[in-house]
């Protein structure tokens, strides 16, 4: 191997293009490009570390920060021993990002119960269970609500939907308002003495305060805003006891405990929805091996996947080789046109061929059954459907092997087959001993 093969044969008087490019980029231009690229990388890393720190993901933040610093050093420290790393680092970064991390993440998920009903973190699940357990109490009221401010504090001006009486709701409780001091129109408070209504574009700003403001009305019941113009009285049916991490049904006293599988479960086996994501060890793998509902289809699919791959490639190869040999006969006429026709299935996009075949194989209206006068359920019977799949795949794939084998056959010197024939070898013998052998040694590396 020569050191600069690209420029070697271009006979130009001045230094080669490559050499000039290297010269150009070695100077301040290269340094500037390097600094800009590193600056972009660092900016991204700064942002990422900021986000990670805000989410309290310390290890990830440390990893991102450390890796970025190391990359900076590799490209900035002028040490000869670091030169190979300059070439390796980009590859390694992409390897980690697109190969290592997905593999680790997938393997990790395999050991969790992540599925419908187990999609939240435990903290989120506790909040969601409390939220879902809220019901309107037996005598619970609903109110037409107008958010307002009193001395800078958010309050709810409420009109009972049933009685039409006005109230003001604060963190301390519900107080009746004197009807003399408020104006009510269309069932809602439109003005109130001592209160400043929050209206129009100000509504967007109070959302968080509004949705978290609970107006206590009893031991556990409260009035809460539902949207911007309605408030309802609600009370929980389940209460979370943080001390021993359980939920208790207020009415029946039933206690739900963390069952270690991502749900709160009572002694009778009823679980609360939603559950949360958690590691369950080898449970998923045990299910695959022991539960016949999962195992049987899994084994079937697994076996068929291999059978399908083997059968379709093998049949494609056999047909491709056969056709290549047939068309390799020296005295055949119109060889090129015939070959071109055989390559056609390869030239048509596979998804088109598949659609066309689906129509051809339709057992009631399809051309194949109508031409043959048969009634074969090509796509409806599990066994026939498998046959159809292989058939179509062979159709799509054999031209590839035909091309490969034709190329290989043409590399077999004609003298060899001729010599074999002179030595009285039959056609099969010539094929096995000479053609196939020379082919396999000159097989294209793909």
């Amino acid at each position: 191997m020569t050191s600069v093969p690209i420029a070697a044969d271009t006979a130009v008087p001045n230094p080669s293009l490559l050499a000039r490019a290297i010269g150009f980029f070695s100077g301040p231009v290269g340094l500037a490009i390097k600094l800009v690229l590193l600056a972009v990388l660092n900016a991204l890393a700064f942002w990422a570390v900021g986000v990670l720190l805000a989410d309290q993901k310390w290890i990830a933040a440390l990893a991102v920060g450390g890796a970025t610093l190391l990359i900076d050093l590799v490209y900035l420290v002028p040490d000869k021993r670091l030169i190979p790393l300059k070439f390796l680092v980009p590859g390694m970064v992409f390897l980690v990002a697109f190969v290592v991390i997905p593999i680790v993440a997938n393997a990790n998920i395999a050991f969790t119960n992540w599925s419908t009903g187990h999609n939240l973190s435990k903290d989120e699940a506790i909040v969601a269970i409390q939220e879902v357990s809220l019901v309107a109490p037996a005598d619970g009221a609903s109110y037409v609500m107008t958010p307002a401010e009193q001395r800078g504090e958010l309050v709810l001006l409420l009109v009972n939907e049933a009685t039409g009486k006005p109230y003001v709701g604060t963190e301390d409780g519900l107080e009746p308002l004197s009807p003399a001091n408020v104006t009510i129109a269309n069932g809602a408070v439109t003005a109130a003495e001592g209160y400043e209504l929050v209206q129009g574009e100000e509504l967007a700003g109070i959302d968080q305060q509004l949705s978290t403001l609970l107006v206590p009305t009893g031991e556990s019941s409260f009035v809460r805003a539902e949207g911007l113009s309605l408030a309802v009285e609600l009370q929980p049916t389940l209460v979370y006891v943080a001390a021993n991490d359980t939920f208790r049904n207020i009415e029946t006293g039933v206690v739900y405990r963390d069952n270690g599988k991502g749900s709160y479960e009572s002694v009778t086996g009823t679980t609360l929805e939603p559950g949360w994501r958690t590691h369950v060890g080898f449970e998923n793998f045990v299910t695959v091996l022991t539960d016949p509902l999962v195992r049987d289809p899994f084994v079937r699919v697994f076996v068929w996947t291999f059978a399908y791959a083997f059968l379709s490639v093998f049949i494609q190869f056999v047909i491709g080789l056969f056709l290549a040999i047939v068309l390799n006969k020296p005295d055949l006429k119109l060889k090129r046109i015939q070959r071109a026709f055989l390559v056609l299935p390869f030239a048509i996009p596979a998804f088109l061929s598949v659609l066309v075949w689906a129509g051809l194989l339709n057992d009631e209206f399809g051309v194949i059954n109508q031409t043959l006068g048969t009634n074969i359920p090509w796509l409806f019977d599990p066994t026939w459907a498998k046959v159809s799949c292989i058939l179509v795949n062979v159709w799509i794939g054999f031209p590839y092997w035909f091309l490969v084998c034709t190329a290989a056959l043409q590399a077999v010197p004609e003298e060899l087959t001729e010599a074999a024939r002179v030595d009285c070898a039959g056609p099969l013998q010539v094929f096995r001993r000479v053609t196939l052998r020379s082919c396999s040694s000159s097989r294209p590396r793909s």
Partner: protein
Amino acid sequence: MLSTHRLRVVAGLAVTAIAAVVAVSSGSSATNATTLVIWADADRVPAVTQVANAWAAPKGVTVQIVQKNFGDIRSQLNTVAVETAPDVIVGAHDWVGELSANGSVLPLSPSAGTKKQFPAYALNSFSYGIAVKKLFGAPVALENIALVTNTALAKVPTSFADMERQALAAKKKTKAQVGIAVQQGSGGDAYHMYPFFSGLGGYIFGTNAVGNLDPSNIGVANAKFLKNAPLIDKWNKESLIRSQVAWDTGRDLFTKGKVAYYITGPWFLSDIQKSGVKYAISGFPQIVPGINSVPFLGVQGFMVTKFSAPHGVESLAKDLVANYMMQPSAQLALASANGRFPANLKAAAQVKDKDLKAFGKASEGGVPMPNIPQMASVWGDLGAAWVRSTKGAGAIPARRSFIGAQKSIAQKIG
């Protein structure tokens, strides 16, 4: 020499660090206006844009509508990052079981006056809960299949016997392979076969004392249905229906005038109108006296996601969905924009389109598709049972086929 090198390293780090700090600080200093993100499918984007903007403008809120494939809305909600997550989604009522079991959507409490404007089943179908049943979505549009008659070939049937006779007569005349075009395909289609299924006495889940669907009571092969099941074998023998008819073959059979009857939904209405075939839309006649033949009802609506709380727009989202979107005017605008019947009764009374009204009429008595997660185990087996029994030659007697389906479903639900 060494000191220049060191200088270069320090200078390089300093330059990049400063650039980074400047970039980050300028990025975060951008002001954050209140934005509400809505995920909607292509069909509904224009209508939702119009209605949501009308709501948002006076409140100083910006609405951002993200177009998604309908099915992707459900699946991507499970994995989306908080930053890009929607606050409000368009969805179907049968997603509610899964989404609320995942804690992805928030319960809603519309006012009593608003609730009164909706048929009970529409609210029920968007409600879910094992112990406490809560509303998780605002129903907007009803979707169901109906019977479409080619009026040049046959009359709107007065009874099922009449329909069967006319369908077979038309089949003979046009030399079609089937009498009634109803789509199944190789995977089966329990949804489109439901009028036949319910008309023969079948049901999917019974209800318990509280009125919740009971997954332990499966009615795929109940006694009443099995008694009537031999009719399916008769239909198969006379090629009244055939499992080989897929969605496209079914549509082509009708739009090319080959069949007298077509069972389909409003999504193919424009194809039918384009084809020039004269048609009439109606409900289904009773197959067996005393049992109504009804379609499945799909109810579509809006839901508030759990992400609205961390985004700081929970009350706004609830106001849009549980208050504004449930009003007659918004309902009418949303429902007519993509050719579906509105769920709100006051809005329904104002529908003028004749075909839309006919689809609405065909929905009467319909059964909302079960919204409990166990329904996922039913579709495949029930569809396959129909395919096995209506595939023409080599079909399995319906009795055996549906008993097998019932067993398989029960096993999957456990």
